């Protein structure tokens, strides 16, 4: 029972990382109907920014919040300077642009920070004060940070006028313009927020998976899986999907097949769910009358 609890809890920690990335992907998907393949690399690059600040002597939490701000600015800039030029372009064109971004950001990180693997410090203490053995302090902290961020994002979209305007712009851009919403600005803000959410995922993952330009490859895959499992049109479903994927991955690795092919088992389970429920576990079936 001890070992099982441990597997579940540490699964939740990585699950929080997948949840954050899935949320970032869904936020952009909802506004543009496009899946940003470069989301993981953007998160990786943000994590390097945090690493560089910490390496230069900045306290962890200062670096953490500065990274969020910088990521927001960079995310918004990518939307304004690159993505907007492909507005209305065929989907395949945009997919190529995303893959191009992925490769460019990956190489840029390798060029600036080298490909050698770096350790990334955790802001949480080395020894646990409680729950020792079940879960490491970093894992517990990562779960806490992820939940706090999800709560903040939820509150923002649910209770602020700007959040409401962003939901409106994503749902019905024409109507949104007619009530005076600058839809282009909402898209840029959405990209910025997604980049900041991704940055949290990167910074929470890095102490576990270590920092290198390819660190997000597998994580992005799980993030996609989480988004699809939860329902790509439902941000909160996607976040829950992230936690489910994290736990499944760990349990499959520990009890079913071992670490080598746990990835395949987790994905197989997800495909099974999607066969039964194509819109995901929490995908909404929208009721409309004409």
């Amino acid at each position: 029972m001890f070992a099982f609890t441990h597997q579940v809890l540490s699964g939740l920690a990585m699950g929080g990382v997948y949840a954050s990335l899935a949320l970032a992907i869904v936020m952009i998907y909802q506004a543009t109907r496009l899946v940003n393949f470069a989301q993981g690399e953007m998160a990786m690059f943000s994590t390097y920014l945090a690493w560089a600040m910490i390496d230069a002597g900045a306290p962890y939490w200062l670096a953490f919040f500065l990274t969020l701000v910088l990521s927001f600015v960079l995310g918004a800039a990518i939307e304004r300077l690159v993505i907007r030029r492909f507005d209305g372009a065929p989907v395949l064109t945009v997919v190529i642009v995303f893959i191009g971004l992925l490769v460019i950001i990956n190489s840029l990180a390798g060029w600036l920070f080298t490909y050698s693997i770096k350790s990334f410090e955790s802001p949480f203490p080395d020894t646990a004060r409680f729950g020792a053995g079940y879960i490491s302090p970093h894992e517990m902290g990562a779960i806490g940070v992820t939940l706090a961020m999800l709560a903040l994002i939820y509150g923002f979209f649910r209770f602020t006028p700007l959040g409401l305007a962003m939901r409106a712009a994503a749902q019905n851009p024409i109507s949104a313009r007619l009530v005076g919403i600058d839809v282009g600005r909402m898209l840029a803000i959405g990209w910025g927020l997604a980049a900041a959410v991704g940055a949290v995922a990167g910074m929470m993952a890095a102490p576990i998976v270590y920092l290198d330009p390819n660190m997000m490859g597998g994580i992005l895959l799980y993030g996609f899986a989480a988004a699809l499992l939860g329902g790509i049109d439902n941000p909160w479903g996607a976040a829950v999907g992230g936690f489910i994927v994290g736990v499944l991955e760990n349990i499959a690795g520990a009890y079913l097949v071992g670490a080598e092919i746990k990835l395949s088992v987790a994905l197989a389970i997800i495909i099974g769910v999607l066969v039964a429920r194509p819109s995901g576990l929490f995908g909404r079936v929208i009721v409309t009358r004409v």
Partner: protein
Amino acid sequence: MAALLETRGLSAFYGQTQALTDVDLAVEDGGVTAVLGANGAGKTTLLRALCAMTRREGAIFFDGKAFNPKAAEDAARRGIAHAPDGRGTFLDLTVDENLRLGAYTRRDRPGVGADLERAFAYFPRLKERRGQQAGTLSGGEQQMLAISRALMLRPRLLLLDEPSFGLAPLVVKDIFRILAAINREDRVAMLIVEQNANLALDLADRAYLLETGRVALHGPSSAVRADEAVRRVYLGY
């Protein structure tokens, strides 16, 4: 009365196709102007051109000044509300959220609260359903929502695109009665596009008849109503 909205030589295009040619039109301050015409005559295009939703040529004047909108949001910022073709409901948002979005450009919170109550007074059905997802409303309720959302801007001018479309006659009658009340009590000027010529002429003081993108006939509602051709083709008696 002075004209609140005036167009001079307004033309509009979808790509290479010209949908509107040299339209001169006016809406009096506090007045109602109706635009009649068959399907494809350019009625919806006219409203879209006023909100920079199509490429256009010609001049628009609003409130005595040149009005040169670059994007649809510019119209809302000048106090022009548009209840669009298809009602433009934010289907996944609640009725309440839809209405609050209508007041997006406003900063006077108490005024917005008062206007929300006023909208509910005009359309009590919306108040009953304020927490409900707007996509679950009936067509008539969605049209009421579209009009209320537009009113939440506290507009000088309300652009209405076929408010009767697809609705039962009783519901249509109700909506037009309330539109008349809004015009009378809140002094909101209206530019209304309608296929139901009878109802539109009852509401309007001026009317324009569009045929293939050009003004074929215009004048006071009573004169347009009396026109032999209009009577035969659009009023059906």
